């Protein structure tokens, strides 16, 4: 299962990298979104999956072993932060478009390199 997940993560990372390297702002932002998906999955997978119950103590069904809770806490934080960052760069892109009239990053490079 882990190997399969890691292969999936590899595909996601490749796609994200390609998107990040493109010229269009929205594609770059989508790339970062995909990249954070990949990283969340990666953290969870490295923590070893399917090794126990959900990390809820005193559940009627089981009394351990539990799945590693630490990666889950990390990911929970990461999800919320990546949402905030995505929102921020989206607005940044939209602001930049409003100001400069283009969403092409190569045209946003400034006068010096024109």
């Amino acid at each position, binding site marked *: 299962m882990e190997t399969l997940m890691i292969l999936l993560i590899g595909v996601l990372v490749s796609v994200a990298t390609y998107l990040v390297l493109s010229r269009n702002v929205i594609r770059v932002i989508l790339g970062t979104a995909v990249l954070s998906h990949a990283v969340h999955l990666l953290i969870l997978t490295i923590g070893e999956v399917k090794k126990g119950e*959900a990390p809820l103590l005193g559940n009627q069904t089981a009394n351990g072993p539990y799945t590693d809770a630490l990666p889950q806490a990390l990911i929970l934080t990461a999800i*919320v932060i990546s949402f905030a960052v995505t929102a921020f760069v989206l607005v940044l892109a939209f602001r930049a478009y409003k100001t400069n009239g283009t969403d092409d990053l190569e045209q946003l490079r400034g006068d010096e390199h024109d």
Partner: protein
Amino acid sequence: MRINDVILRTVVRFVVFIILTLAIYLFFAGHYSPGGGFIGGLVIASAFVLLYLTFDIEKVQQGIPVDFKKVAALGVFLAVGTGFGSVLFGADFLTQTAQKFHIPLLGDKELGTVMIFELGVALTVVGVVMTIIVSIAEGDGD
């Protein structure tokens, strides 16, 4: 982004309250089962987002006359404040403590300072998500 769909509007009116109830459940259940401040806050926010998607901004703002920026600020204040609260009692920064209460009908329940902290987190999440959405939605002036 205006959807003139009577069925959607009618359904949303009810669904929003169900979602909000769920949110409050999730928030309080957080310490024992899935849920907590983040999730509670996000669910509340998603309920509001649903309202905004269905109705006009003006109409929703009439219904919920809240400045979400202030909600976010209050949330951060609560989250950081509980940290300093424990310092006032001589404990380390952000030490949480809990106390068992006997509440009629509900039985023994535990109430802790962690609830205030979680409330802060939830309010921040609601405030920030709504601030972002509402700002973008309003921001098509020019």
